[in-house]
């Protein structure tokens, strides 16, 4: 099927909330830095950020700045704006983050036609301002 250009969902209709475990991720995003939660004890990465390392039980967390590149692990093609049902082509992707083995983000990809998105495609982070002054990591075709 032919869909045409993939667009990110407009940021003004996206809202997030945070808690003390997740807020450092979103604060880094505000500064244009893509990070992931890394255990300060054993170095294991986990996303979304949680209170305790599932591997070693440590509460110590580090927030290294990642390269900002990723690989598409899977995706869907959607053609209605989820807010108002109007025609709107967007591609939710599940990506594997470079520099943080085993972690993923769910985002939108743009910079290509929806039908050109494929598993294994290289993408780079693309920041989308959203409600309440937060910034969301989306991705563009690399």
């Amino acid at each position: 099927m032919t869909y045409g250009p993939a667009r990110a969902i407009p940021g003004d209709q996206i809202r997030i909330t945070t808690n003390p475990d997740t807020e450092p991720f979103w604060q880094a995003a505000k500064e244009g830095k893509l990070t992931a939660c890394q255990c300060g004890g054993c170095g294991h990465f986990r996303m979304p950020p949680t209170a305790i390392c599932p591997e070693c039980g440590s509460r110590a967390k580090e927030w290294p700045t990642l390269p900002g590149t990723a690989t598409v692990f899977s995706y869907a093609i959607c053609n209605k704006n989820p807010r108002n049902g109007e025609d709107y082509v967007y591609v939710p992707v599940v990506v594997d983050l470079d520099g943080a083995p085993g972690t993923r983000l769910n985002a939108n990809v743009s910079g290509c036609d929806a039908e050109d998105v494929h598993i294994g495609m290289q993408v780079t982070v693309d920041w989308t301002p959203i409600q309440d002054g937060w910034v969301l990591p989306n991705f563009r075709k690399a």
Partner: protein
Amino acid sequence: MAWVNQDKCAIVGVGATDYYVRGKSWPRTINDMAAEAIMNACADAGISHKQIDGFSYYSTAGAGYLDKFDTASLMETLGMPHISWSATLTSGGGGCPGAIGLATAGLMNEDCTYTVTLMALQQLPQHRLGVVFGAAAPNPENSFLQPSGLVGPGHLMSVLARRHMHLYGTTQDAFGEVVMATRANTHNRPKAVRKEPLTKDQYDASVMLADPLRRLDFCLETDGAVAVITTTMDRAKDCRHKPAVVHAAAHGGQREWGRAFAWMGMPDPHFASSGHKFTADRVWAQSGLSARDMDVALIYDHFSPMVLMQLEDYGFCEKGEGNDYVLSGKLRYDPATGKGVNGGTPVNTHGGNLNEAYIIGMTHIVEGVEQVRGTAINQVKDAEFALVSGGPASLPVSSLILRKD
């Protein structure tokens, strides 16, 4: 090792309301429909609803997705004099058949004598399951999913289906065959919502809602209620019908599946799976049986690809071979012989969530009971064992084997 509670309890009564297209059950209330289903199930069992002294829920005692069951409220409605068991499995529809295992726990602990498992569902516009994920208020956990626009269960499942297609060469033709094979079982079912035979051309013309999934890959949105009564085998002997014996029951799952498509962190090969491997292995270990021993499989079908992936996880075929298994016609029921086709095990002889009605898995239990009683509309000849599965979703998911008495 055989399960310690094997063959010690049975489902003795099944009851339901009519099935309504989404929203059409109004002005009936949830408790009205729940009570009718309970009373019908008790009548089927040959007991009074006032003998119910246990409630074994799933889906966190949810009635649909925004309403909640409350045991005291149901007691008030139905006049049950006392209850001594009120428990629920957590999460959602994945726990449906596992609730029969929960019922068994209450009965074997001598907490209760007759326990009901039920679901009632009324999808008024604000309660539509199809939009519940997207309409949920943002929280710190779903803030890592919701902004991607994966707002409905179908969107979420399409991402899993895509990965399965990528890894194993699975085709949309196989998803279509799941829908067509089970649609073929509803033409003679008076209560089924979709009864017309489905052609491949009609399937291919179905609108793409979340590529690679079409509207017809999504289950129905219906209203209604279904209840089943579980009791001990000694009491079951005095009930109206032959008991549907609880031969094995398990709920749970493993960390690699976890929150599933509310998370998307599953490593391969778990990502492109149904998350059922763990409970499948448990019920096979409990029973000493395997997929080939099942006479009929009632597989939770909220989305057609998840049927294919469950067939792999339960071992009806090898992992990655679901496409060929499905396309060889092995899900089909042959009414002429009362058996499967091409050596397969008939799947969803009631039409399932895709075609008959969607009451979050309860219709699969009812069909399992009717099959081992020998009273099913599409009766599998000499059915001895029926497998029932709960919806692939956040843990726990669950599995049940019913046996003919």
